[in-house]
């Protein structure tokens, strides 16, 4: 499945949710799948996608929050998996774009990429589902207890859509407005 198809599967099932994307492929795919919706696209801070999402989820317990993170980003900030397990936000889903490679820097392999599912399956209070197609992502998002991680197997080695080099001020202002309920949601 392509990254944007995985993200579209999540968007299908979570209307009105606050989305956060890690740098690179995740940001590009979310921009494409949401028609550049008012989401929190990270242009840097690799390894911080899940941590930012935890902050959003705890600040807005009344909203569903979806973290779209690359597997490389998640590995770089793997300590946040412990925080996910400890904080147990009941409104957070983590969609991992899983291809075992660092797409933004040229497709280099992650070390021990097959360890990710094992680690996730061992985290107390965190649910895990796998998906290999857009309908499977949608089904997993619909059913998984929160907090939950959906491992979405992707196979597109390039940025799938618009540039991930976002304008931070524009992203901040649109997201803050959307999160506060003042801005318009994605189409």
């Amino acid at each position, binding site marked *: 499945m392509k990254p944007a198809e995985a993200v579209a599967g999540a968007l299908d099932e979570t209307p009105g949710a606050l989305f956060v994307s890690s740098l690179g492929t995740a940001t590009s795919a979310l921009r494409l799948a949401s028609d550049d919706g008012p989401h929190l696209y990270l242009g840097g801070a690799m390894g911080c996608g899940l941590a930012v999402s935890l902050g959003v989820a705890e*600040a807005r317990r009344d909203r569903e929050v979806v973290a779209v993170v690359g597997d490389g980003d998640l590995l770089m900030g793997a300590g946040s998996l412990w925080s996910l397990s400890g904080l147990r936000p009941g409104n957070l889903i983590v969609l991992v774009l899983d291809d075992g490679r660092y797409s933004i820097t040229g497709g280099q392999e992650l070390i021990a990429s097959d360890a990710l599912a094992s680690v996730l399956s061992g985290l107390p209070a965190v649910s895990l589902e796998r998906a290999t197609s857009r309908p499977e992502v949608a089904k997993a998002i619909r059913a998984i207890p929160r907090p939950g991680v959906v491992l979405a197997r992707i196979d597109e080695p390039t940025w799938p859509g618009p540039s991930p080099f976002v304008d*931070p001020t524009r992203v901040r202002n649109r997201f803050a407005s959307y999160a506060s309920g003042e801005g318009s949601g994605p189409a």
Partner: protein
Amino acid sequence: MSSDHAPVAAPTRVPVLDWQADIATAIRGADVGAVAYVPDARLRGIVEALAGAEPEVRTLTREEECVAYACGHLLAGSRAMVLMQCSGLGNCLNAVGSLCVPYGIGVPIILSMRGTLGERNPSQVPMGRATPALLSALEIQAFPVTDPERAGATAAGALELAFSTGTCAAVVLDASLGGGREAS
């Protein structure tokens, strides 16, 4: 199995120093919703003074994670801040430089100094010595506290600055305030 891995019994509580209580009061007065924290001896009294009421204190795994967590909170409309030891500043430079600064997110950081007056651990010295330069390189204003009487007002001012202007601000707690590892 799980009981085998539960934390050992909690250590004895430490007395909260007046300046630590004053900083906690400043944090509460600024309507902070969450404090992200990586443990440090000098900060411990602040956390103990915050116990039992808002804001929530979150002990996370790394300083970079604390900064990112606070950024998520702030962008979603809730005030958050970070407490860390200066040795952790190096762990979070990229989060500050590629998230807080470009996105204009004002995260207040209370930094407990190691590696300066009275330090006995050689491994703490280089990062302590580098702290002012690291903050300066990212254009983060640093507000040192050496006089315990000024701790509360300095923290309150830094919180206001960060939240109102969208720029990070650091309150730098000098070793002379006590409560840290140097004395024990």
